[in-house]
């Protein structure tokens, strides 16, 4: 959908650095065009799924629980692999703070614990 210029996607340096980080072996530079296309298809599907999950819950906003449901369906989140473990394993501190409730002074918890 749309031309590549209109919708730039994630940067080459981001995609390649993350891929190389996880590959733990040499990565040929000709991998990038393939990765770029895969990521385009990945985000197309992701956007469709998230919009559908949100619409199913009669919302117009994509929420954390929609993405969690998606990851359950993708098989990343299972009963033996809870989402919080993945968050702690993969995400940098700043994103983790947004997702995992932490008690602060005065008995405030940030962010608000998610309802189940």
């Amino acid at each position: 959908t749309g031309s590549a210029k209109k919708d730039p996607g994630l940067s080459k340096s981001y995609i390649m650095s993350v891929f190389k980080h996880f590959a733990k072996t040499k990565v040929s530079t000709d991998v990038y065009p393939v990765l770029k296309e895969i990521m385009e298809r990945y985000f197309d599907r992701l956007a469709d799924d998230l919009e559908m999950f949100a619409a199913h819950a009669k919302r117009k906003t994509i929420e954390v629980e929609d993405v969690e449901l998606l990851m359950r369906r993708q098989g990343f989140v299972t009963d033996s692999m809870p989402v919080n473990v993945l968050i702690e394993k993969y995400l940098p501190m700043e994103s983790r703070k947004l997702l995992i409730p932490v008690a602060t002074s005065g008995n405030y918890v940030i962010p608000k614990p998610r309802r189940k």
Partner: protein
Amino acid sequence: MLKRVPKTTLKSLMKKKAHIRVGTAADAMVELNVLLFLHSLAEEARTKAFEEKSATIKAHHVKAVSKVLVRNSARGCLGLN
């Protein structure tokens, strides 16, 4: 140390239509999903490369494993239709 994902780009990629909004922290969850996806892609591409006795991951290794993975993430669609 991993790079941070550009937030505005990520948010625009998460939604196709303008009327859909992205809730607080939902983009952080998508960042996690991107990392998990690239992780499994990288691991399977490496396995594929080693199977073919190559120490370097090349384009065709990634292409070969991507077909299975994209089909796997298509499972996201099945339940609610």
